[in-house]
């Protein structure tokens, strides 16, 4: 156990050093959320005022947070795929370490990074006058919900890092995953304004539960039933991903 802690900490430190040395890699994932927040929030302000009866930027913030979490988690496996491609992974595997330390170290680093990015978005929102209805406690809750979504998505990304051939394929998957994940949810418009088929997909999309819960925290207040629904949905999602990931990755990291 002490050995596992030592290995995992070493892996985590390596990724945090990457983050420290190349902070602009983080900016890469933040480009879309920031554009959405600043420009789209501004552009549809007038339009949305009537139908939603409030500040569209504030309305968008939860969707943007969820998108930030999704994007960063989904890209989280890429460095492991690079390690796989250039022989680093094999070298690590020749060391007397638990294979899980490679995954756990990366998993922790990705989610720490996600939290930092969420804080940046929330800070930027604050600058644009967005106020969270539930205050500081709400901010904490937003981060926790973000983590619940991020955990499962990170596992998907780790699986991709081991089952895809090369990083080209990975970037292709990344490119086509973010848009549907957010459009087929309640990220930009209320669910009941979507056509039926989209509503069905949105209903099984963990992003929807994330965003609905976040939105209530941002716009109105603590909504117990909604938070419980979200917690159940995301825990089911996470558990399923951990179970599936464990099966797949055990085979690929034998």
């Amino acid at each position: 156990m002490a050995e596992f802690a030592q290995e995992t900490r070493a892996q985590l430190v390596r990724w945090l050093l990457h983050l420290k040395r190349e902070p602009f890699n983080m900016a890469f994932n933040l480009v879309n959320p920031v554009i959405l927040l600043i420009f789209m929030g501004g552009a549809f302000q007038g339009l949305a005022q009537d139908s939603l009866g409030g500040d569209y930027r504030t309305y968008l913030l939860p969707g943007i947070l969820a998108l930030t979490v999704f994007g960063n988690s989904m890209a989280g496996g890429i460095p492991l795929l690079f390690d796989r491609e250039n022989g680093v992974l094999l070298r690590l595997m020749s060391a007397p370490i638990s294979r899980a330390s490679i995954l756990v170290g990366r998993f922790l680093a990705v989610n720490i990074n996600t939290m930092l990015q969420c804080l940046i978005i929330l800070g930027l929102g604050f600058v644009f006058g967005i106020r969270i209805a539930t205050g500081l406690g709400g901010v904490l809750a937003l981060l926790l919900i973000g983590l619940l979504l991020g955990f499962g998505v990170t596992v998907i990304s780790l699986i991709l890092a081991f089952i895809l051939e090369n990083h080209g394929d990975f970037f292709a998957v990344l490119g086509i995953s973010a848009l549907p994940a957010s459009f087929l949810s309640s990220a930009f418009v209320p669910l009941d304004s979507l056509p039926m088929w989209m509503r069905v997909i949105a209903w099984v999309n963990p992003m929807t539960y994330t965003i609905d819960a976040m939105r209530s925290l941002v716009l109105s207040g603590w909504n117990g039933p909604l938070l419980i629904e979200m917690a159940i949905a995301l825990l089911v999602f996470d558990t399923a991903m951990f179970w599936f990931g464990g099966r797949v990755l055990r085979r690929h990291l034998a």
Partner: protein
Amino acid sequence: MPEIMIRAEKLRKKYGQIAALDGISLEVERGTIFGLLGPNGAGKTTAVKILTTLVRPDEGKVEVAGTDVVGDPVRARRLIGYVPQELTVDPYLTVREHLRYYADLYHLSPALKDSTIREVVALVALAGYEDRRVRHLSGGTKKKLDLACGLLHRPPVIILDEPSLGLDVQVRRDVWSYILRLKEQRTTVFLCTNYMDEAERLCDVVSIIDHGRIAVTGAPASLRSQLKGDVISLRIASSEDAQGGNLKTLEKSLSGLAIVQGTVRDGTELKIYVDSNEIALPQILQSTASLSIPIRSITYSRPGLDEVFLHYTGHPFAEEREKDG
């Protein structure tokens, strides 16, 4: 009785239709440097991956320091230091961060970590570079760091896959001297190489591997001295021979001589294997004169590992390298 630190028996490994290893067996004694010498694609890296627990053999047995590598890989990994063929250093870290990272992966205690890192840094002459980012190091220095990372846990067995591939002459010599120092410390070294001079200079025992099979094993000097005959290297002026026609003609005519056992053409050079250079040289000169082919130089030598390879595999080493590389 010498202590056997690496023992492989009848290892086989197939990738699809290709037999990367076709039943190789070998033994390495403690404190010696063993070389697996062969052209690209011969199966060296496959053998290394099996020894380092990264690939399971289809058949055969492997032991490192008495531990069954297939049966107890976790234990075997603690006994082995492995430095792969390609660079595996992380450009974002500094040299020290890198060494600490590997020190943790090999579970060095906090008390030992820094002193061991200092020792290893001294061994591969990285002192002064500790706080540099790996990204800014030269290729040779990166390779030294890569080597250092494999030595941190002071393993009894070090496995190096083509340690001097692509290094310039000076770094190559440095790397050789570290390897020899490991041997002084009674570490057992298993190295793969594609370079005759590296095998000759470092290895106590060499196995020549070709197409997944070991052709011959022995000390480099004794392998060479067992070969009878001499090698004559003849070079013609390249401008005289744009299409290689002259050399081909010459090769053909020389092959007819009873004293010539074989020839290998490489660019503008022709290697002629003969029983005795005293008798062969006049005959060769006569042939070139009668074909009026101008010679730039002609030298003769005792067989080297090149000739050992040719003798035991039936084909030249360099030709294989051109084809695969």
